[in-house]
């Protein structure tokens, strides 16, 4: 329970932010937080709360797998790379050939989720392929 006390502010933010399917488990001195955030803002708030309690994430006592709920097929997602284009690949992995690009700030359409890391999307130009989910923010 000690870790839940240490990260109380983070857990409160998750509860108050409306994170669904929230699971908080403590195992072998690591706090595992799983769930789905309703918006990208809520996810940002959680990471801000985490960084405040453990600056630069040095302690290694949290694994927070809270992603923005992707919604149904047809949901639009914003490309939120730092500034570069987002690669659209033939399969879910960086070893897969690049078959297209989505510009920073462009919208893509979600087709399905291969897993938490790779989503199958369609670009505005109609290219269909896998993009790294970290750089997509569902709208």
């Amino acid at each position, binding site marked *: 329970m000690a870790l839940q006390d240490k990260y109380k502010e983070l857990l409160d933010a998750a509860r108050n932010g409306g994170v669904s399917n929230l*699971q908080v*488990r403590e*195992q*072998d001195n*690591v706090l*595992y937080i799983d769930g789905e955030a309703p918006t990208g803002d809520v996810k940002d708030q959680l*990471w801000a709360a985490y*960084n405040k309690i453990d600056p*630069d*994430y*040095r302690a*290694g*006592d949290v*694994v*927070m*797998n809270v*992603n923005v709920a992707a919604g149904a097929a047809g949901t639009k997602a914003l490309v939120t790379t*730092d500034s570069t284009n987002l690669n659209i690949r033939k399969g879910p*992995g*960086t*070893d897969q050939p690049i078959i297209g690009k989505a510009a920073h700030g462009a919208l893509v359409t979600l087709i399905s989720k291969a897993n*938490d*890391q*790779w989503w199958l999307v369609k670009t505005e130009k109609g290219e269909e392929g896998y993009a*790294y*989910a*970290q750089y997509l923010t569902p709208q």
Partner: protein
Amino acid sequence: MRTSILKLSFMLSAFAMFSLTACKSGPKDADIEKAVNEKIAAASADIADAGATVKDGVVTLTGQFKDEASRSTFETSVKAVPGVKSVVNNTTVAAAPAPAPVVVASDEQLKQGVRDATKDFPGVTAEVKDSVIILTGEIKRASLKNLMQSLNTLKPKKIQNNLTIK
């Protein structure tokens, strides 16, 4: 004289009201018990080993509910049964099931995921051992959150961040 007649008539009417109430017999304990048992039968999905006894309109409940919400809903519904004066709620609530243990990804799965996650961070070296991700090298502070967010989705056992932050 006039006041005493008024007083008398008031007393008479009060007496009449009192006797009326006294004569009107409320639901018997047996009726109450029957009604409560019907409620127990209706709530059988929420309660185990349920029992109810009634004495002088006081209902005593026993059994185990699946959760606190169903327990209090049931108590409220029993209180609403005609003739029930009070409820002694001796029921308990089942302990919450233990959460499922955390499942971590295998080293093989993590290595693949880590390769994808670190691709855009050339200064970062990530090693995977016993499902723990160990980060060394250097990174800009502005990029750290991005990297950590993707690594956290891979289901590692933990992430040891030994990065030098520029």
